[in-house]
Every structure is written in C-alpha cells, then in structure tokens.
C-alpha cells in the first residue's frame, strides 16, 4: 500500500536537511523538538502532516514558513538556502512564496475582507493597482465570497473568515501553501468545503500544499501523508487511492 517516500530528484519547493530545532537554548530546560529532519516537498504536492499533540507539527510548520529559525540544519525554499538570510530577506521570501492559513483564520479586524486578501501584496508593493484588486476580487469569487468584499471580518461566519484567509494566502501566487489545522474549528460540512478549496487551488494553480491536521479523513484524502512523532518523521507515504506512481 505505501512505502517510505524518497526525495524527488528535482522540482522541489521545499527541502529540509538534518533540520533541528531546540527551545530554551543554554538553559537547564533546553529541549530539542525536531531531531534532524530530512524532507522534500515537490512543486504540486498535496501533503498532510499528521502526528499526536506535542510531536512538533506546529514548530515544523513555523520553521518551514520562515516564522521561526531552525537551530541547525538547512532549509531550502525554492532552492535557496535560508539559514543565512537576514530578517528582511526572509520576510521578502516568505511574502512572495509562502501562503499561510491558520486554524483561527486570523484576519485583521480593522480591514475589510478584500483589504485582508490584498494585505500581503500591499505589504510587499504598497498601494495595490487595478490588476491586484481584480485578482483579489477573483480569488474572493473563487471562494464564493464576492458579495462580502467590503464586509469587515467580524461580520463573517467562521467558515467565511477561513475562506477569506485562504484567498489571502493565495494572493501572492505562492509556491507553497501552509495550513495549520485549517478546518480545526469548523463543522464537518464547512470543513469539507474548505478542504475542497485547497484541493482545487492545488490543481488549478499548481501550488504545493502542506496541511497540518488531526483529522484522519482529511489526511487520507491528501496525496501524501507525513507522520511526525516526537520530532521524527516515522512514516511518509503516498496514499493508495492515487497510486504509488503519482
């Protein structure tokens, strides 16, 4: 059914090499959370990252998203080594090639839905031009929210907010979409709809998706399942439904 997944030779969006992450370095309670991970994510992978609580999933996601820095090892994003980058370059790379979707949708209440969607572009380029605004509108339409473009997030339901967050994550046409329990606090039907959105964008835009989830139904529906236990990758499988040759 499944076998240890081997790193693909080319077309990686992301590559981890002996990546370690410790907290409280130099203190008596120093703990290593990630124990030397090697992992590759291809250009149009649709992968689930699963594992019990405390296994280091969120830490790994933050490190991959360049929000947090590894203690040692190297992280290549689109072929670029990131460990020696300064904050400004890491921020620029994060802004241009990674989209984030969090469990708690995390929109900025001071801005309308479409402004939230445009935020990554505004932060990188300043005042959005017509093309950018059209793009944002199209993304909102794609998640079924074109009517709510100028609604503040506080007046949207949880599922609607999460759709806006997905549109925001996609506005920069990122190579990698990271999602931390994106359906964690949604009901099953909404969760399924959100999942389908990820599926669709993976197919349509060819962006790699790495999805942290607790939900076995979701992970099975992904093309690939990476299982992290106590800071180690214990299995990395292609799911049978799509065949091993994918």
């Amino acid at each position, binding site marked *: 059914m499944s076998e240890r997944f081997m790193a693909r030779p080319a077309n990686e969006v992301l590559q981890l090499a002996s990546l370690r992450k410790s907290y409280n370095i130099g203190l008596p309670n120093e703990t290593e959370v990630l124990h030397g991970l090697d992992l590759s994510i291809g250009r149009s992978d649709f992968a689930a990252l699963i594992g019990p609580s405390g296994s280091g999933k969120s830490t790994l996601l*933050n490190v991959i*998203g360049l*929000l*947090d820095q590894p203690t040692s090892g190297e992280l290549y994003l689109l072929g670029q080594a990131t460990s020696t980058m300064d*904050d*400004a370059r890491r*921020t*620029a790379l*994060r*802004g*241009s090639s990674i989209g*984030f979707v*969090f469990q708690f949708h*995390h*929109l*900025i*209440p*001071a*801005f309308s839905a479409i402004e939230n969607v445009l*935020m*990554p572009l*505004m*932060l*990188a380029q*300043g*005042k959005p031009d017509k093309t950018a605004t059209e793009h944002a509108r199209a993304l909102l339409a794609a998640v079924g929210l074109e009517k709510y473009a100028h609604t503040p997030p506080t007046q949207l339901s949880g599922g609607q907010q999460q759709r806006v967050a997905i549109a*925001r994550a996609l506005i*920069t046409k990122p190579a990698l979409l990271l999602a931390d329990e994106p359906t964690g606090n949604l009901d099953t039907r909404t969760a399924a709809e959100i999942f389908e959105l990820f599926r669709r964008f993976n197919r349509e835009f060819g962006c790699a998706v790495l999805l942290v989830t607790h939900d076995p139904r979701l992970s099975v529906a992904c093309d690939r399942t990476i299982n992290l236990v106590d800071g180690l990758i214990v299995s990395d499988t292609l799911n049978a439904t799509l065949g091993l040759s994918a």
Partner: protein
Amino acid sequence: MTSLLRRLWVEWTIALNFLREGRAQTVMILIGVAVGVAVIVFVTALIQGLQTNIIERTLGTQAHIRLLPPDELNQVLPLAAGTVQLLQEDKRAQRLRSINNWQQVTAALDQLPILDAVSPVVSGPAFARRGAALESVALVGIDVERYQQIIPLRTYILEGQLRVGAGDALIGKLLADNLGLRVGDKLRLETGQQNNTVVNVAGIFELGVRELDTRHVYLDLKQAQSLLNLPGGITVIDLTVEDIFTAETIALQIARLTSLKAESWMATNAQLMSALTAQSMSTNMIIVFVALSVAFGIASVLSVSVVQRTREIGILRATGATRQQILRVFLIQGAVFGLLGSVIGIAVSYALVWVFNTFGPRLFYIPVPTSLIMMALLLATLTGLVAAAVPSRRAASLNPVEAIRYV
C-alpha cells in the same frame, strides 16, 4: 514627499485603520494631547504678550542705550623706580561736564547701521520756582527732531504743543499740578549758578512714569546749555537700536568705539530683566512638564495598543510585514497623535486667546505668532514620534510565532 508617502503607504493605511478601529482610545489621547498643546500655546502667547507689553511701556519713556562721559578719576603720578608708595585716595566728585568732541561722535554714530536713532541731550539739575513754591527738576535740553525718534514725545502731549526753544519749555503733568501751571504760564528756572531764566510753558506731557512727570523739563538744547553753564556741550547721547534685546551687546561695542560709558536699558532695568527671565523660566518649566506628560500619555496608550494588537502584529508579520514596517506603523500612530492633537490644541488656544483679547481685562493684547504655531505643530509631532519609539520597538521585536498564538 510624495514618493515618501507612496513608500509608506501601507504603513499609513494600517496605522490609520488601527487608529480608526480603536476610536475611544484615539479620541481620549487626542484630547489629552490637545489640552497639553493648548496650555503650552496659550501660556506662551500670554507671557510673550505680557512681556512685550511691559518692555514697550518701559522703553516708551527711555532710550535703549545712553552714552555718558567716563567717570573722572584721580591721576596718580608714575613712581620712580625702587620706591614704594602708600596711597589713600578719595573718589572724585563727578561734576556735570560735557562729552568731548560730541559733534564728531554723533556724526560717527549716525553712520552706524545698527543704530536707529541718535540724539544728543544736555541734562542737569535745577529748581523750578513759582511764587513761594519750589520744586527740584531735571533740565533736559533736546533737539526735538532727533529726540522724537527716541521718545515719541508728541504722543504724550496732553495740552499745548510740542515746542521748545525761544524761551519755551515742556513740563510734566505732575509738576504742572504741583506748581499750579497751565499752558501759557511762566515758570522760573534756577540752576544755582546765577543763570536764572523765566520760560513759557508751551506744553504739558504725561509719560505715565511718576519720576519723569514730576521732574522733567524739556528745553531747547542751546537754552539748557547756557542755563547749565555748558555752552556748546552735551552730557548724554541717547540711542535706540533695531532689536531691543541686542542693546547690551551693542552698548559694549559702542563703549569700545567711543571710550564713553554706555548703559543699555537692560543694565539700567536689571531688576525688570531678572523678573522677566524668571517669568520665562517658569513658563519654560510648565512647557517642559506638560510636554513630558503628553509624551508619557502617548507612550502609554501605544504600549497598551501594542499588547492589544499582539496577534494582529503576528498576522501582519506572517503575511509579509518586515520588522521595519511594524516599527513604522506604530511610529506613525505616535506622530499622528502629536500632529492631530496639536491641531486641535492650537484651535482651542486660538479660542482662548480670542476670549482673553475680547472679554478679558484688556490690559494688553495677546498676539499668536505664526512661528509659535509652527513650533507647536513640529514639537508635538516630534514628541509623538519620540514617545512612540519604545512601544514601536517592542511591537517590531515581537516573535511572530508567539504573537500569532497570543489571545
């Protein structure tokens, strides 16, 4: 400027949206800043108006600089070598005497561009007698045209005309009251040197200074010279300068130039000057402490705002905001507090000044100079920026991973 605005567009947008969203906080701190700025602007304008008024009143009746002949000193013969001398010396009585070469000195001073007006005056003591009444007075011999530029006598004339010469004199109102004189009456002047004369009262003035109104008798230069037994001489040269606060410096320069004794109005009114300085100092203290409390108000509001917006800062960082952008978002908020608050404060202080000028005691007029407004705007904005520095740095240094989990 526009390119700077364009580059800071997103920071501006975020800052203004944050301010709009935290409306209650924004309004309260704006009121705080406005009250502070209003107090600063109003107090500064009030004190400036008051001091200008006091100085104008003081200088309305005196020259900015007076040049006097140097004091006479005892001449001590040089000693033969190898001798020791014990000397007991009495100071010399300073007799009334003329300034040497005053025509040349006056002509030279007329050429100096730093001086507005030069007026040679002869002045000395005398008695004014009418019947059995006797008053001690100061005779002041003037060249009316020149003296008018130092003290605008014409504006102080109560009765009669501004006319000296050919036996005419101007006397003060209090002297006229004491001696029962009116315009056209005769007055006998005695200088104790067998030089007595009778003059005609051509005009009565009121300078508003008791000392001057009881004692000054203005005469023609020539008549005063002959009465005081100083034919062709003058005892004082009165000067005015453009900027009254440079009087002391210019007095020193002129003293070096002419080797005469130069007294500036600042030296002769040392008490007034120290009072004004003390007043300015206390005003400055008020300004500094009000500005400090405004700065701390802005800093504390922004500190609270950074804590409240921790999660949003994390989201912004995750969606591509750099530390610098976060820093600028909060710096801009501080600057906006300062700028907007001071605009409101200045409007309030204008209203206060208007009320004072219209309904107040009307002792003096308070002007609000544009420079003061500009300074207030600039200083308040800078204060806002500086006050925002600490909270902004904290916002910028937040760890995005922790910030995003913050509830």
